[in-house]
C-alpha cells in the first residue's frame, strides 16, 4: 500500500500552513531522512523529512498551495513494486492557491539567515500590502465600534501582524521607541511578532538580549527612567516571573516614590496564559497578578484591531504598561481599520455583542469562549451581551455596570484561576454598584484550580469551555 505523507504541524497551535516547495518530484527515489518539501506558516518555516523509503508517488498538493490543513495527505510514497497508478486518487482538503506563496518563498531565501529554520522576513510595508489584498472578512461584532469612524475601510490581518504594525508605526513616529527581548531581532521574534523590524530599524533599535529576563527588564526600566520608551518583549509572561521585581518595584512604584518626579514610559509585552500542550510552567495567566498593582496599566486584547490600537496607545502612554497577548490568538485574523493612525483609548471596554438577557464579561482568549457561547445561547433564545474588557486596569466598570443594570445577570470568563482572579474583582464591583439590579448571583467561569496538565484531555478540562459559559449563563438566567 502506498504510504501517505501528511501535512505536519510545526507547533500544537498550528491548524494550517502553506506548502511552499517540493524538493522531490514524482518518481524520485526517497530515503528515510531526505528532505522532500518545505512548509511554512506566518510564524516559521520547516522542512518535511521522509520517514519511509521508496519512490515519490503522487503529489497531492502542489507547491504554492496556501492554507493546507494539518494532517491533510500531501503526497504518497510507493514501496518497491508499486506504481503511481496504484495510488488511490486522494483529494486534498479545500485549499486555495495563491501567487504570493512563491513570492514569499523568494523573499524567504533572500532574507538574512535566522538562527534556526528559514524565517520569512518581509518588510512591514510589503506585509501591509499583502494584507490589503486579502478580501475583508465581514465584521463579526454586531455592535458598532464607536472608536472607528463610520465608513472606514477594513483590512483583514492576523493579530501578530497588527501588533507588528503597531510597533513599526510607533517606531517610525518616535525615535525614542525601541524594542528589546529574546530573539526579537535576527530570529524575527520567537512568535514572529517582531518580524521585519530589524530590517527596517536596525540593531540599535531592535535588540536581541541574552536570556536574562530580570536583567534586561531592569535595564529597560533604567532606560525608561532616563527618558527612552522601551518595548520589552518577554518570550512569554511565564518568564517574566524572573523579572517581576523590576516590573513592580522599579517600574510601577517609582513615580509615586519620587513624588511624581520620575516615572517610566515602558511597555512589557508578550504572550500570556495557556497556549497548547506546554504544561504548567508555560501556561499561566497573569491577568490577576499585574492588575493587582497600582502604577501599572494592564491591557489584554482579543482581536487584531484592538491589539493594534491599544499597543500604539500603550507605547505612547507615559506609564508602565503590561500588554498581555495570547499565543493562540496570534494567528487569528480579523478586520483592522485602515487608518493612518489608529489609536484606541486605554481603559475602555467594548460591547462586542449587544444583548439584553445576560452580560458576559471576558478579555483576551476568554472572548473566544464568550462569543461562541453567545451564539449557542441565541439558539436557545437567550441574548447575551458580551463585553470585551480589553483593559484590565484601569477597569471600565461603568460599561459593565451599565450592561448589568440592563440584563440583571452576569457571567465572567477567564483562563486564569478563580481565587483572587479578575472575575472575582468584577463580581465584587457588580455587587457593590449594581446589587439591586441583580436577578442572580454573578457566576464565574475560570481555569480550574490546578497547575496546567500536559495531557490533551486533562488540559481541555483545566481550561474554561464554551459549554461551561453556556451553562453559567443559563444558570444565572434560571433556565
Amino acid at each position: 500500500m502506498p504510504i501517505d505523507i501528511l501535512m505536519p504541524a510545526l507547533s500544537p497551535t498550528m491548524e494550517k500552513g502553506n506548502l511552499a516547495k517540493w524538493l522531490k518530484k514524482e518518481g524520485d527515489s526517497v530515503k528515510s531522512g531526505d528532505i522532500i518539501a518545505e512548509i511554512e506558516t506566518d510564524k516559521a518555516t520547516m522542512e518535511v523529512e521522509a520517514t519511509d523509503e521508496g519512490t515519490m508517488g503522487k503529489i497531492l498538493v502542489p507547491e504554492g498551495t496556501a492554507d493546507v490543513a494539518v494532517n491533510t495527505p500531501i503526497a504518497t510514497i510507493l514501496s518497491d513494486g508499486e506504481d503511481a497508478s496504484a495510488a488511490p486518487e486522494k483529494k486534498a482538503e479545500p485549499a486555495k492557491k495563491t501567487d504570493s506563496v512563491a513570492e514569499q518563498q523568494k523573499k524567504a531565501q533572500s532574507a538574512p539567515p535566522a538562527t534556526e529554520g528559514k524565517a520569512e522576513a518581509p518588510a512591514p510595508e510589503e506585509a501591509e500590502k499583502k494584507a490589503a489584498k486579502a478580501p475583508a472578512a465581514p465584521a463579526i461584532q454586531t455592535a458598532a465600534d464607536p472608536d472607528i469612524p463610520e465608513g472606514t475601510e477594513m483590512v483583514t490581518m492576523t493579530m501578530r501582524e497588527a501588533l507588528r504594525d503597531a510597533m513599526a508605526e510607533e517606531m517610525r513616529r518616535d525615535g525614542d521607541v525601541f524594542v528589546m527581548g529574546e530573539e526579537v531581532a535576527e530570529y524575527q521574534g520567537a512568535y514572529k511578532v517582531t518580524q521585519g523590524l530589524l530590517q527596517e530599524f536596525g540593531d540599535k533599535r531592535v535588540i536581541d538580549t541574552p536570556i536574562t529576563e530580570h536583567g534586561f527588564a531592569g535595564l529597560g526600566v533604567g532606560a525608561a527612567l532616563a527618558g527612552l520608551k522601551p518595548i520589552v518583549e518577554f518570550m512569554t509572561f511565564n518568564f517574566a516571573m524572573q523579572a517581576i521585581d523590576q516590573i513592580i518595584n522599579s517600574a510601577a512604584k517609582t513615580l509615586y516614590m519620587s513624588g511624581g518626579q520620575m516615572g517610566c514610559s515602558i511597555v512589557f509585552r508578550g504572550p500570556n496564559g495557556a497556549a497548547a500542550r506546554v504544561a504548567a510552567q508555560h501556561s499561566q495567566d497573569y491577568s490577576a497578578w499585574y492588575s493587582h498593582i497600582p502604577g501599572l496599566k494592564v491591557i489584554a486584547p482579543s482581536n487584531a484591531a484592538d491589539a493594534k490600537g491599544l499597543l500604539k496607545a500603550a507605547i505612547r502612554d507615559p506609564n508602565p504598561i503590561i500588554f498581555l497577548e495570547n499565543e493562540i490568538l496570534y494567528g487569528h485574523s480579523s478586520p483592522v481599520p485602515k487608518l493612518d493612525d489608529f489609536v484606541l483609548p486605554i481603559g475602555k471596554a467594548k460591547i462586542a455583542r449587544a444583548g439584553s438577557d445576560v452580560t458576559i464579561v471576558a478579555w483576551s482568549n476568554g472572548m473566544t469562549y464568550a462569543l461562541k457561547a453567545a451564539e449557542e445561547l441565541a439558539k436557545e433564545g437567550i441574548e447575551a451581551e458580551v463585553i470585551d474588557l480589553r483593559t484590565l486596569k484601569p477597569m471600565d466598570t461603568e460599561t459593565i455596570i451599565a450592561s448589568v443594570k440592563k440584563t440583571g445577570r452576569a457571567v465572567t470568563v477567564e483562563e486564569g484561576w478563580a481565587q483572587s482572579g479578575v472575575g472575582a474583582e468584577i463580581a465584587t464591583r457588580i455587587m457593590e454598584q449594581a446589587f439591586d439590579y441583580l436577578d442572580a448571583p454573578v457566576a464565574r467561569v475560570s481555569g480550574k484550580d490546578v497547575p496546567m496538565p500536559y495531557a490533551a484531555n486533562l488540559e481541555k478540562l483545566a481550561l474554561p469551555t464554551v459549554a461551561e459559559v453556556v451553562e453559567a449563563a443559563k444558570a444565572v438566567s434560571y433556565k
Partner: protein
Amino acid sequence: MAVAQKNSSADDNKRAPAAKLADFSKEQELSAYETMLTIRRFEEKAGQMYGMGLIGGFCHLYIGQEAVVVGMQMVLKKGDQVITGYRDHGHMLACGMDAKGVMAELTGRAQGYSKGKGGSMHMFSVEKGFYGGHGIVGAQVPLGTGLAFANVYRGNDNLSVTYFGDGAANQGQVYESFNMAELWKLPVIYVIENNRYAMGTSIARASAEVNLSRRGLSFNIPGEQVDGMDVRAVQAAGEKAAAWCRAGKGPYILEMLTYRYRGHSMSDPAKYRTREEVDKVRSTTDPIDMARARILEKKFATEDVLKKIDASVRDLINQAAEFATHDPEPDVSELFTDIYR
C-alpha cells in the same frame, strides 16, 4: 590603606593596575573635605532625629564611607547619572541635592524630595542626575546599566555610576547586568562599596571570592580595588574608570574598600563585629580626619579656617533639621496623586 592590604588578593595579575593617588589642589582638598563633613554631620543629625522619633522606618547611615561618593562625584560631568541602593543620603548630598529636601523626606514631610512619599530609601532628582534611592538589594544595578544604555542610544558621552554594596554583589541580576554592559559596551562604572558587612554577615561568610574587583573577570570587565577611605585614591580611580567608559570601552568595576561605623540600620545588634575593630578603622583611616590632617600639613588652610567650615556645615545641617521638623506632613490629597501621569 590598612583596609586595602587586608583584603587584596594575591592573584590579581588580571586586574587593572591600581590608579595612583590623585594630587589634590587646595580647592579640591577643601571642597572634598567640606562635602564629606556635610555628609557626616547630616548623618549624625539623622541618627539623632531618628532617636527622637522624627524619622521612621528604615534609616541607613553612610558614616565612614563618605570618601567614596565624594571622590567619585569629582570626576562626573553634567548629564552623568548616579544611582544607588538604600544607603543613599550621602549620594544625594554629593550630587548637590538640598539638605533640607533630603532631611524633610526623612521626616516624611511635604517639601521632602518625594513629597514625603518615598522616605529614606526613595529619593530622586532629575535635575541633579540622581536616579535613586532603591530599596531592593541589587535592583539598582540593571537600572543603572539601563541609564548607561540610554547614553549609548542617544550617542552622548555621559556615563552612569552605579553603586552597590558587597551584599548586593552576590545578587544574580548584577551578573546579568555585567554581561549586557560588556556585550554592548555600555558606559557604566560599577562602584562596589565593600564595607565588609552585608547587614551582619561579613564578606568572608557570604562570598566565595572576597576580592569583588574580580567579579567582572569572566565578562572581561576590568576591575580594581581602591582604598575607599582616601578620597584621593577614589578620585584617581574614578578618573581612570570614567576615561575608559567615555572612550567607548564599556563598563569598569571599582571595588571601594570602605567601612561603615554605624550599624546596618538603626536597630543593629552590633554583635557581628567588635568595638575594637570599629575603633581601629575609625582612629587610623577616617576619611575626614585624614583630609583634615593633609590640609593642615600642606597649609591649604589654618585651624581657624577649618573651624569656620565646620561651623558653616553645622549651621547648614541644623537648618535642614529645623526645616524638616517644622515642615508640615503632606496634604492628605497626596495619597492618590503620582500613581499615574
